[in-house]
């Protein structure tokens, strides 16, 4: 197997607050292969965005990486000095944020924001950077890019601005893009366009993507593999097809049941009973057990590790190799 582009191991992100230490991301591990699109799904507060922020070193204080490692192309990047990390951001890891309306500095033209980013990372003259910016804007589908270079962000619509944001993320040819809810703030009609654009560009540039979203539909369309987070922990990870069609973890199962399908639409969308526990009050054992229809004694007592069940892996005692599948039946019997 090829060397992973990004390798995250046992990542723990904590926020020391005056009411105690919150663990926003708790022992998450995953790999991203070059050119691969890894979807990260979960409810809000599941730790998706904090994972992304930890990778590019932009956790908001007092948030910090408490333990674990992050390797980019074999180089450990979670302990780098702020300045070295800065040189990685934009150059080797690009980012796309949720709201294109607020991601661009309103007082600078988009051309200036593009050339500034390029010239920070690449050895280009102003003229070269401008040429490249025009080409890039054309690539992300902005009509008449040469004329639009000197326009200000407010002169673009939301969808167009997100295209500019994508151009900004790509402008120094990073190997990886972290896209945090890139379509959530957009009109439904434009969401698909932006998703398709992101996918196409990354294929063309051979750029990998960490696609953070709460929308399983986007994941199903775009991602190669998917990681499901719950309560800051990894619940399941595997190829998109397997996770969507043959989910292992009961939480994933519930999540998949929430996706509306065009044919045989159920009368009501399924819902997972209850809500995700607050990070202040994480239950012992498996974080999902209070809501899990299959929970049994071990789920309450012990936190499940990730069990391999090719092609996926799930952190659920149901998939423990020692034949624990019998366990839920025991419970129903008693």
């Amino acid at each position, binding site marked *: 197997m090829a060397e992973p582009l990004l390798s995250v191991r046992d990542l723990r992100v904590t926020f020391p607050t005056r009411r105690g230490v919150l663990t926003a991301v708790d022992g998450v591990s995953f790999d991203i292969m070059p050119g691969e699109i890894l979807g990260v799904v979960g409810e809000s507060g599941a730790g998706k965005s904090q994972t992304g922020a930890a990778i*590019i070193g*932009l956790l908001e204080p007092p948030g910090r990486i408490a333990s674990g490692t992050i390797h980019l192309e074999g180089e450990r990047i979670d302990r780098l000095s702020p300045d070295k990390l*800065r*040189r*990685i*951001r*934009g*150059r080797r890891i*690009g*980012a796309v*944020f949720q*709201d294109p309306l*607020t*991601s*661009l*500095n*309103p*007082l*600078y*033209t988009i051309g200036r924001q593009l050339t*500034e*980013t390029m010239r*920070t*990372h690449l050895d280009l003259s102003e003229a070269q950077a401008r040429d490249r910016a025009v080409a890039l804007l054309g690539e992300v589908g*902005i009509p008449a890019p040469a004329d*639009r270079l000197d*326009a*200000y962000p*407010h*002169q*673009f*619509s*939301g*969808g*167009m601005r997100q295209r500019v*944001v994508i151009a*900004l*993320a790509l402008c*120094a040819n990073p190997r990886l893009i972290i896209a945090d809810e890139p379509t959530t703030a957009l009109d439904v009609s*434009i969401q698909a366009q932006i998703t398709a654009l992101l996918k196409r560009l990354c294929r063309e540039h051979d750029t990998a993507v960490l696609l953070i979203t709460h929308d399983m539909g986007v994941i199903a369309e775009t991602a190669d593999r998917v990681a499901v987070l719950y309560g800051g922990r990894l619940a399941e990870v595997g190829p998109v097809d397997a996770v969507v069609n043959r989910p292992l973890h009961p939480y994933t199962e519930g999540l998949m049941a929430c996706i509306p399908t065009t044919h045989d639409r159920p009368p009501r969308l399924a819902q997972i009973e209850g809500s995700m526990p607050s990070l202040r009050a994480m239950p012992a054992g498996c974080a999902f057990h209070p809501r899990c229809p299959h929970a049994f004694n071990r789920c309450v007592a012990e936190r499940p590790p990730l069990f391999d069940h090719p092609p996926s892996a799930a952190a659920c005692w149901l998939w423990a190799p020692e034949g624990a599948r019998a366990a839920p039946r025991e419970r129903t019997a008693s």
Partner: protein
Amino acid sequence: MGAPRGIRSPCSRGEPMVAFIVRRLLQSVLVMLTVALVGFALFTYVGDPVNNMVGQDTSLADRERLREELGLNDPFPVQFARFVVNAAQADFGISYRHGRPVEDLLIERAPATLELSFAAGLFALVVGVPMGIYTALNRHGWLSKAFLTVSLIGISLPTFLIGILLILVFSVWLGWLPSFGRGETVQIGWWSTGLLTRDGLVALILPAITLGLFQMTLIMRLVRAEMLEVLRTDYIKFARARGLSARAINFGHALKNTLVPVITITGLQLGSVIAFAIITETVFQWPGMGLLFIQAIEFVDIPVMAAYLVLVAFLFVLINLIVDILYFVVDPRLRVQGGGAGL
């Protein structure tokens, strides 16, 4: 001292600049008319102008003739219209106390006040803005904490007390700087300036610091608050995610966005600098318009009070207008008419 927070843009997006400025001009005219009304009411109802002009032994018939001559028997709108027309031509009558045309007094005094206000504003900006930036960027540094503490003491010190303390230390105890007057001035046309002589410049130091200190602390706190706000925005986060250098982010992206509201407040503060000049001028016996105004209040010299009021209001309105126009220069969202092209 609550600097207005979350300043709104002066106009809704898409309103053409010309229409906006015309609207503001109309508003300004309205404000000026209101102030003129107050000034006129002062004239008419506070004290009897005739009493102030003639001696005790003037006969009633003479007084009545004077009233008629001055138009004091005309109907209210006529009198008010006359007041406005005169005021527009800078004719505010004769000072009761000085017996000279008020406009002459004001013109004579204006350079002193304007030079003092300008120097104070400059001091406040040149010191306040960098301090604000520094405290925003190094929030937990000891120097920031020291600046903030000093600024809190600064806003708790009344202007006159700052002046007195400065005089006590630098004039009385150390004997370095003069404590009153403008020093030596040079006449350029009708403008007398203290900026061209060493003596005049030295005399300007203490008054300018006194007047500017409060504004400086205000600007510092404002710049700090706005900068912290801007540093939390998504586009700064995104700029970090693009790997821009801290320098480019702080001094390019953040500072420029910070300056938009700072311009407004600073501009508006310029008006209050002129008003607070009254206090500074009293402490330092600075021969400006403020000192004239204070003396006018003590002696109920109504024409001077009314004229000063109208003049200050005019300056305020003018500054407001300039600030509004500056907005257009700084913020492209206002400069370019109409909303988005694109999708």
